[in-house]
């Protein structure tokens, strides 16, 4: 292993289920509950079905470039499920599972990826941030949000998600460092899906883990099996408790991007089919299903009913999205400033005349 740090041993990877869904460690009682686990399972299946629909809409020219979360549903759903409604999510661009869990609608997500700004005007979680495209840029916003909670004495936390590539940016270190200095209620979840477009994580860092980057900020770094939704949710719940008490946290969730980076990418150019098919053996949806089936909490008929239900839900959302009236062209000007500056009135009128 390169980059071994003297006197530092990386934190263990917390997991409850093995790749095949067999129990590795006793599952925390409050999570080992049929309704809780089925809730997580349904959310992962919904996320995956939604992703498939979005990709097919893109392929048929009805959606713009889209970043699928195929294979990473457990990280997204697990962290979203652990949050309180009053917490604030600052997502990267692949966190559909968490956004859906928090009440962003499928229509809004499709709108955003189709290039319609109204998709970021969430009707549900009004204080959550829109997707951040410049990687790691959302990490410093989380500092400000968490500071706002601290200043108002609110028991809320900021949850910021970023990719493994994003940890290479200074923003990430600046943010976790500041959270450590001020003991802010923030949790940073690194979605380590092993790839940043074509660059493997080994090209981002020589450190053996990403969680250990927290050490330099003087805060806790944790690792979790990101394909085990039970572990993600549990670790995340504990991290949020810590954060609310002024101990900011970094969680590295180990997962794998099974799909292309986005619909504009062809991952076969840079990674082996063999690697991907190995990783299909450990994916999160099947893993939890195996466990549920083993507990006799889930049967073939349940699965069939669920598939029918989420497909219907996703299809309905897609129809609703496709039926949306276009946004007025003048929207371009009307949300730029609180009030339209006189110097822009002429430009706005020009647009209105042409496309009003």
């Amino acid at each position: 292993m390169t980059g071994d740090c003297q006197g530092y041993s990386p934190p263990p990877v917390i997991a409850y289920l093995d790749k095949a869904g067999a129990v590795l460690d006793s599952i925390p009682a409050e999570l080992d509950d049929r309704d809780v686990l089925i809730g997580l399972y349904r959310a992962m299946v919904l996320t995956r079905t939604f992703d498939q629909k979005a990709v097919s809409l893109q392929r048929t020219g009805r959606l713009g470039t889209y970043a699928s979360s195929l294979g990473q549903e457990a990280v997204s759903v697990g962290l979203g499920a652990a949050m309180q409604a009053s917490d604030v999510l600052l997502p990267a661009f692949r966190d559909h599972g968490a956004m859906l869990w928090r009440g962003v609608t499928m229509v809004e997500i499709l709108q955003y990826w189709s290039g319609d700004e109204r998709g970021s005007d969430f009707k549900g979680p009004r204080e959550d941030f829109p997707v951040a495209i410049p990687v790691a840029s959302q990490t410093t916003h989380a500092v400000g949000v968490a500071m706002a909670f601290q200043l108002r004495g609110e028991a809320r936390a900021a949850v910021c998600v970023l990719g493994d590539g994003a940890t290479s940016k200074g923003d990430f270190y600046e943010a976790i460092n500041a959270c450590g200095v001020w003991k802010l209620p923030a949790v940073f979840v690194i979605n380590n899906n092993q790839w940043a477009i074509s660059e493997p994580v080994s090209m981002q860092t020589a450190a053996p883990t990403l969680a250990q980057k927290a050490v330099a900020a003087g805060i806790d770094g944790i690792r979790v099996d990101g394909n085990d939704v039970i572990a993600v949710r549990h670790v995340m719940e504990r991290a949020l408790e810590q954060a609310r008490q002024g101990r900011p946290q970094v969680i590295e969730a180990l997962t794998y991007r099974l799909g292309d980076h986005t619909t504009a990418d062809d991952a076969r150019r840079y990674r082996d089919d063999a690697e991907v098919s190995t990783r299909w053996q450990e994916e999160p949806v099947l893993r939890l299903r195996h466990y549920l089936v083993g507990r006799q909490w889930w049967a073939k008929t349940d699965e069939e009913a669920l598939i029918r239900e989420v497909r219907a839900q996703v299809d309905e959302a897609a129809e609703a999205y496709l039926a949306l009236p276009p946004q007025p062209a003048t929207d371009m000007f009307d949300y730029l400033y609180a009030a339209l500056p006189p110097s822009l009135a002429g430009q706005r009128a020009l647009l209105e005349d042409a496309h009003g």
Partner: protein
Amino acid sequence: MAEITLVEAVALAQARAMRDDPSVLALGEDVGKDGGVFRATDGLLAEFGPARVRDTPLAEGLIAGMAVGLAAQGFRPVAEIQFMGFVYPAVDQIVNHASRLRNRTRGRLTCPMVLRMPTGAGIKAPEHHSESMEAMFAHMPGLRVVIPSSPARAYGLLLAAIRDPDPVIFLEPTRLYRAVKEEVADNGEAAALDQCFTLRGGSDLTFVTWGAMTRETLAAAEALAGDGIEAEVIDVATLKPLDEASILESVARTGRCVIVHEAALTGGFGGEIAALIGEKALLSLAAPVRRVAGFDTVVPLPRMEDLYLPSVERILAVARETVRFQ
């Protein structure tokens, strides 16, 4: 009423804004105990305490990014960047987030933050401490770019910037920080944003300028008056959004315009104003619009910075040619 310097006016306005509105916060490197390296936040820590006056780690991207987060949560952060030459790491946050948060969320999240910083040459500071990059910010949709030219205007404009519902880049001409004193009433009255100030009336020529260059420009106008030429001096004050009407109205009356700024000539904001006049007041012009600006060079180290800055003589030479032009 006390006579105070521009930097004291900046501190005064911040204190007033913080007293009036508990959501106003000050943050930046050394803004607390030290009161800012120029003392622009002097006294704030003592009055408002460390929760509201926050020394930050040395990280400009963080300062701007956390201000975005605070603003989205309903605070009004006033963040200091120690010198304009160090703002570049924060530019990502300003252009990609602060300036467009309102637009991209259809007004759900907004960004009422102020990013203050010293700007410009002329105090013999080290390398990277003398930049005038206002055109870079003025190019960014969704921002306000404000630059005061006197203590009273600094007080009023900063109050207005802090109360503004959108992000404001507030540029403080370093050269003016202590150059003059002026009576400033601490009455909590904001000055109007998005409006030029006419510092001197005249019917023969319009000078358009801003920030520290208002001084040399006013001196040039006085010298011209000795020759019987009355020059109007317009202090743009808010570069973005621009008060086009005041500039066009003046140029329509005088028919002659010289734009003065210390930032490098090419791509400078003077070009924007010249284009505006070309588009909207061409027929009232009796002479070509001219620019007097910093050279297209790196701002030199202190020994040569006076040669870089437009001098009264350079301004006068161009103004006289413009007036003589038939």
